[in-house]
């Protein structure tokens, strides 16, 4: 039952990885050939709905599901005890999938004036209330299973991954409850303040701790080196928990709210540099002296690449959150570029690192093709940055047009079609890389050579020395 629960979350995430990003690439055609997309309105799927489907399936489907599968895999191993009540985690996986399918149906149907079934107004919180109830119920089931496992652990020391993964699940429940339920008690400006809190914490308090906990597990094991600094890892966890919740309102600096709330958000955003420093230092210093392992280990490659994207996005975030910069980039695609750098870049790389690490260990099969694994890696190395640059270029040009030249947003379309075309093409290549990753894993189920503990994930790469023996 334990393996079934992990596999359910893991393989469901792969399905959503194919659906979510592909919809994103498809809907980007709206910006370069809007006339071609008119047919979508005829089938009740205009851009406004497709965008919601894209964000919901990528965030809740691919990213969160893959990190929850990682939590179910990693926490029991770190606690040296089997997962408690795996039936809860297994049932939660089905509830979560049912909620996402229901979400897509209700977004398409767009039922008006229904308390439980209507699309909600908040960004990333568009899922109808019935879907929200199912999501929270699933999170509570996973928390119960994992926390009981931690209570029953057979070693007293908690490695930092357990802090991040379990803490991340608790903050997931809290953030989701506030952003989807508590927010309904407010209106006007109060609603917007809560909404800002939610939409940034959907990344910072849901995806970030789950993703970092996953990477903290993979990096030292894949690099076969001890973690660079225990103290830095703990400083990073607690400063993330302390500073991240206050950052959300930097999305609405131009909004008429008390100035102290804006200042609090900006200061919190800049202070996020501290946990970022802790994480990036630990991830990049741990393999020091043994970086050659990156040639042999796809989990390490993807974790290192994800860390570089994480560093870039976390340097960009505090920079654009300051009032001195925000007035220019607000209302432009710069912001979406930043979101893609975090979610499609950093955390997708961490998710793929987890996939490459976990797959042989939960299925008993090695990956069948080193070449295809390389394709998935180089797609993220070469084409993702070009995709991101196209997005950012479009944002910078739009900022100049509307802020400095006084144009309307519609007048920017003529000056941004080249970067928008670039991002559609390169974004499509990135999606092909994701599909190759899913194909690689699914085909390995049938044709992959048997895997035994201590072996490397890819057959041509030989037998690796187990970590315990290497550093004994």
């Amino acid at each position, binding site marked *: 039952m334990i393996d079934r629960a992990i596999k359910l979350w893991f393989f469901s995430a792969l399905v959503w990885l194919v659906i979510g990003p592909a919809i994103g690439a498809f809907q980007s055609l709206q910006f370069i050939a809007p006339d071609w997309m008119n047919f979508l309105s005829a089938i009740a799927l205009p851009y406004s709905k497709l965008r919601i489907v894209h964000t919901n399936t990528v965030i809740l489907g691919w990213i969160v599901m893959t990190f929850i599968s990682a939590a179910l895999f990693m926490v029991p191993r770190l606690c040296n005890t089997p997962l408690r009540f795996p039936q809860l985690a297994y049932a939660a996986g089905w509830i979560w999938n049912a909620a996402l399918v229901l979400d897509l149906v209700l977004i398409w149907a767009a039922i008006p004036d229904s308390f439980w079934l209507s699309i909600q107004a908040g960004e990333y919180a568009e899922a109808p209330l019935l879907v929200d109830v199912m999501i929270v119920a699933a999170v509570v089931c996973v928390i119960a299973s994992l926390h009981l496992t931690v209570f029953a652990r057979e070693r007293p020391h908690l*490695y930092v991954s357990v802090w991040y993964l379990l803490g991340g699940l608790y903050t997931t429940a809290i953030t989701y409850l506030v952003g989807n339920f508590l927010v309904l008690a407010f209106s006007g400006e109060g609603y917007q303040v809560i909404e800002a809190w939610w939409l940034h914490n959907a990344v910072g308090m849901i995806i970030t701790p789950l993703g970092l906990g996953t990477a903290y597990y993979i990096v030292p094991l894949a690099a076969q080196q001890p*973690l660079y600094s225990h103290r830095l890892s703990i400083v990073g966890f607690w400063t993330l928990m302390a500073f991240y919740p206050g950052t959300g309102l930097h999305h609405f600096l131009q909004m008429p709210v008390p100035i102290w709330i804006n200042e609090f958000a900006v200061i919190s955003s800049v202070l996020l540099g501290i946990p970022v420093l802790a994480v990036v230092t630990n991830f990049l210093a741990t393999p020091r002296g043994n970086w050659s392992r990156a040639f042999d280990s796809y989990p390490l490659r993807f974790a290192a690449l994800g860390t570089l994207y994480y560093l870039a996005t976390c340097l960009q975030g505090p920079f654009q959150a300051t*009032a*001195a910069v925000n007035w220019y980039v607000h209302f432009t695609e710069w912001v979406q570029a930043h979101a893609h750098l975090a979610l499609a870049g950093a955390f997708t790389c961490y998710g793929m690192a987890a996939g490459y690490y976990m797959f042989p260990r939960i299925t008993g099969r090695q990956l069948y093709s080193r070449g295809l694994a390389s394709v998935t890696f180089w797609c993220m190395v070469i084409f993702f940055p070009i995709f991101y640059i196209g997005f950012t270029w479009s944002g910078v040009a739009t900022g100049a047009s509307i802020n400095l030249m006084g144009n309307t947003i519609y007048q920017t379309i003529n000056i941004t079609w080249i970067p928008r075309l670039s991002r559609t093409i390169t974004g499509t290549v990135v999606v092909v890389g994701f599909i190759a990753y899913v194909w690689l894993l699914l085909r390995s189920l049938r044709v992959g050579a048997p895997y035994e503990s201590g072996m490397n994930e890819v057959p041509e790469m030989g037998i690796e020395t187990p970590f315990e023996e290497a550093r004994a």
Partner: protein
Amino acid sequence: MRDDETVEHVTIKEKHGPLPRWAWLFIATCVIYGFVIGPFDWFSP
């Protein structure tokens, strides 16, 4: 309830020691930058 399935043992080793001096320097920089530069609208027209 305890599942009968066994679990692979994983121990991740960590280095212990005080924070390096440059980490404190970076933390101080973040604090100063956050409070002095961050909230103020220095450049908008």
